[in-house]
């Protein structure tokens, strides 16, 4: 009965709404904090796995995660580049590029050899339409392997619909277009910063 009377008070509504919002925010902040480390670790493990996957078997004999350089590629944050060495010399580099897909950002990991040819490309994270755009994942189709061996010269960097050399996916044009453009921009970044990437000092 007391509660029913209280509910009629004009202040009850804002106070209730505020309390619920506050409670939800506090819980979310607390969980975000509690999970941050585990999520970071899981993502680092994912990155380690994909670093290995994006390079041909036995390509590198060093620990890529420990051998990285940061370059200013024009983005907000410096671009982290992981280097694959054989007997001390850099044979290739691995770095992330981000494409603007249909459902948001597509985070792509690409490996480039020292001459600018693509060693491998993998999609790390995306929010494309399930069943259509998600064929860019290696788990769903082999489409992404079409980049291997391509370089800036010698390939037309667009999907076939736009007169280029890369297949589009059935039902999805924006997604493969975004991936092709992102990989192309990655190659251009590599070409611009080649010297720094191959010979620069490692940064911690």
């Amino acid at each position, binding site marked *: 009965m007391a509660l029913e009377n209280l*509910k009629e008070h004009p202040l009850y509504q804002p106070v*209730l*709404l505020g309390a619920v919002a506050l409670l939800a925010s506090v*819980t*979310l902040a607390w969980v975000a904090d509690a999970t941050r480390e585990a999520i970071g670790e899981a993502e680092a493990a994912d990155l380690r796995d994909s670093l290995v996957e994006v390079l041909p078997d036995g390509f590198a004999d060093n620990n890529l995660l420990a051998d990285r350089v940061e370059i200013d590629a024009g983005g907000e944050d410096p671009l982290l580049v992981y280097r694959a060495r054989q007997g001390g010399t850099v044979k290739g580099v691995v770095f992330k590029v981000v494409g603007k897909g249909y459902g948001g950002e597509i985070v792509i990991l690409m490996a480039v050899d020292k001459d600018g040819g693509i060693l491998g490309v993998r999609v790390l994270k995306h929010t494309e*339409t399930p069943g259509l755009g998600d064929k860019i994942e290696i788990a769903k189709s082999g489409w992404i392997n079409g980049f291997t061996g391509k370089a800036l010269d010698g390939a037309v960097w667009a999907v076939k619909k736009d007169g280029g050399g890369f297949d589009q996916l*059935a039902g999805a044009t924006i997604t493969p277009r975004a991936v092709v453009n992102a990989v192309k921009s990655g190659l251009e970044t590599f070409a611009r910063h080649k010297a720094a990437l191959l010979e620069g000092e490692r940064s911690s």
Partner: protein
Amino acid sequence: MSASIKTLVKDGLWDNNVVFAQMLALCPSMAVTTSGTNGLGMGLATTAVLAASNILISLIRGVVSPQVRIPVFIILIAGLVTLVDMALDAWLHELYKVLGIFIALIVVNCAILGRAEAFASRNGVWASCVDGLAMGLGFTFALTLIGLIREFLGSGTLFAQAPQLLGAGFAFLEIRLHERGGALLMILPPGAFAVLGFLLAGKRLLDARRQAGQKSRQKTSDAEESAAPVDTR
């Protein structure tokens, strides 16, 4: 009590099915049902959130005043989904990599708000929990069915990539019926509308038949009671 639970389950699975009867949550139903596996994944993730949100809302229903109930429910549901999203990412990362894409979509699922408003805010915790589970499973059933039909017609597979969602033990579910693709239209949005339309028509037909059957039975018993024979045509 057990009778009402039976009604709740029957309502959720068939009579008041989220998709086939209430026509709610059509956005996720259309968007993700490009394969049976996707439908199943979305359905199960939604079931978990739906049961949890029903319980939560039923627990606080006494303090929520009618004027601000909608924003309160929305905050709770959005918070819950985000919570599940973060927890899965952190502690069940492998599962998250498969389900992650669906979880964000649950926020836009109006069926959850619908159940909060229509059921959980008026009923006890136990009944709300059962209602959430039943509605969720009905949703899962609908999505899996739509997904399977679209997948069968559109790409010639059934439960493609099921092992990635359910684990390697479920590889037997994955069936490739023919190599040469199918009608792409069925995978595209129009296919979702077409399949849902036919399914809705099918359900109406079944329900109408069942009703007609009940009526004619009634008529026959009426006829038997009255002495004079009645022409039931």
